[in-house]
């Protein structure tokens, strides 16, 4: 009985699994018999070896045996089996990429079937959340895309055409999250501004008093710069987090943010400060320059 080390054993199991997969359902071949022959062939190659067979030694023998996908004539393989074989025995990152893209398409189709076709394209993840199964498929697609990236990285391979298959689900997940992270406050502020007008008479009177009545061009102008200022403030705070934990940004938005570093974080901080200065400065100057400005200023 030939001994194999741990790596060699796994390699052999994987090879035999491929043999079974390729020969299964071939009418002219007895898959079990061929598998047994292969095992005996391998054992004969290492006959007399006392030390456990290493991965490299076994790999040399398996290379001479060749790829099992080439053993069976193509005309004997059913068309669906060819697809399954391609998915099961093809390069791992391509298999995962196909599955990821397939799940994403399925998710789209489910949404389209529920008459949310057009919306689905523009704000996909948000709409998908209203359709649980569709969202689950989309989530699975995203996770498999990340797995594809990790597999390629582990094998030190660069993604070629697979990018077209895995990037859509990544972009559809990252883009809304990023937009939300950067601009969530905008919606909150607009809502606040409208609420203040409707619910706070003192505020409304004060705004009229300083010459900025509600619904006027000046009003929207001022609030735009308030939003800019507060955006700058939020971005400054966010940039401090990214400077401290730049690795988190790289992981969260991998691979698009893989080059994000503290320097870019500082640049982000600078942009935030500039926006804050511009926004605050403009608002302050504008209100101060109003003839009836509030005594607080």
């Amino acid at each position, binding site marked *: *009985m030939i001994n194999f080390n741990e790596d060699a054993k796994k390699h052999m199991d994987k090879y035999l699994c491929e*043999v079974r997969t390729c*020969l299964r359902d*071939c009418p*002219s*071949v*007895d898959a079990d*018999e*061929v598998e*047994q*022959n*292969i095992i*005996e*062939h391998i*054992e*004969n190659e290492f*006959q007399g070896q006392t030390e456990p067979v290493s991965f490299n030694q076994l790999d040399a023998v398996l290379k*001479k*045996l*060749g*790829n*099992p996908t*080439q*053993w*069976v*004539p193509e005309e004997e393989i059913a068309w669906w089996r060819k697809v399954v074989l391609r998915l099961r025995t093809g390069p791992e990152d391509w298999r995962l990429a196909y599955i990821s893209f397939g799940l994403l398409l399925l998710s789209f189709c489910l949404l389209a079937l529920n008459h949310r076709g057009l919306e689905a394209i523009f704000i996909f993840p948000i709409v998908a959340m209203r359709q649980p199964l569709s969202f689950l498929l989309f989530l699975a697609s995203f996770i498999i895309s990340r797995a594809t990236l990790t597999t390629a990285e582990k094998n030190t391979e660069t993604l070629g055409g697979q990018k077209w298959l895995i990037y859509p689900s990544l972009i559809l997940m990252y883009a809304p999250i990023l937009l939300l992270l950067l601009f969530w406050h905008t919606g909150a502020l607009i809502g606040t501004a409208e609420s203040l007008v409707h619910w706070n008479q003192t505020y409304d009177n004060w705004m009229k008093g300083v010459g900025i009545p509600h619904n006027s061009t000046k009003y929207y102008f001022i609030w735009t710069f308030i939003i800019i200022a507060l955006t700058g403030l939020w971005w400054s705070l966010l940039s401090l987090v990214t400077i401290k934990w730049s690795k988190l940004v790289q992981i969260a938005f991998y691979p698009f943010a893989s080059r994000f570093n503290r320097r870019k974080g500082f640049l982000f901080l600078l942009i935030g400060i500039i926006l804050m200065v511009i926004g605050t400065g403009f608002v302050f100057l504008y209100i101060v320059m109003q003839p009836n400005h509030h005594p607080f200023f």
Partner: protein
Amino acid sequence: MDNRFFDNWSTQLRKGMLELCILNAIRGTSLYGYDIVRKLRDIKGLVISEGTIYPILSRLKREGLVRTSIAESTEGPPRKYYELTGKGEKILIQMNSYWQDIKAGTDALKGEDKL
């Protein structure tokens, strides 16, 4: 481009020749699968991946051209030996004759003075 053409052609040629060579290797004797591989691997250009021999053996067995028998081995577990059936013998004679005809014709086309 030239290499690809040659590769395709030689692959097709090997597919047909392997079965003939396997049957000729077994003719008149009883061989263990691994022994068949060892015999054929010495023929230059015939065997690119040794594993192809085993599905061919399985196919030949299903066609009734070869049969197997189990025999005890001093070197390890019992081994499966392959030998030609009567049907296999007849088919092999036909195949060899056919191959001789094609070879003679090809040689004639090639001629002695040409490449």
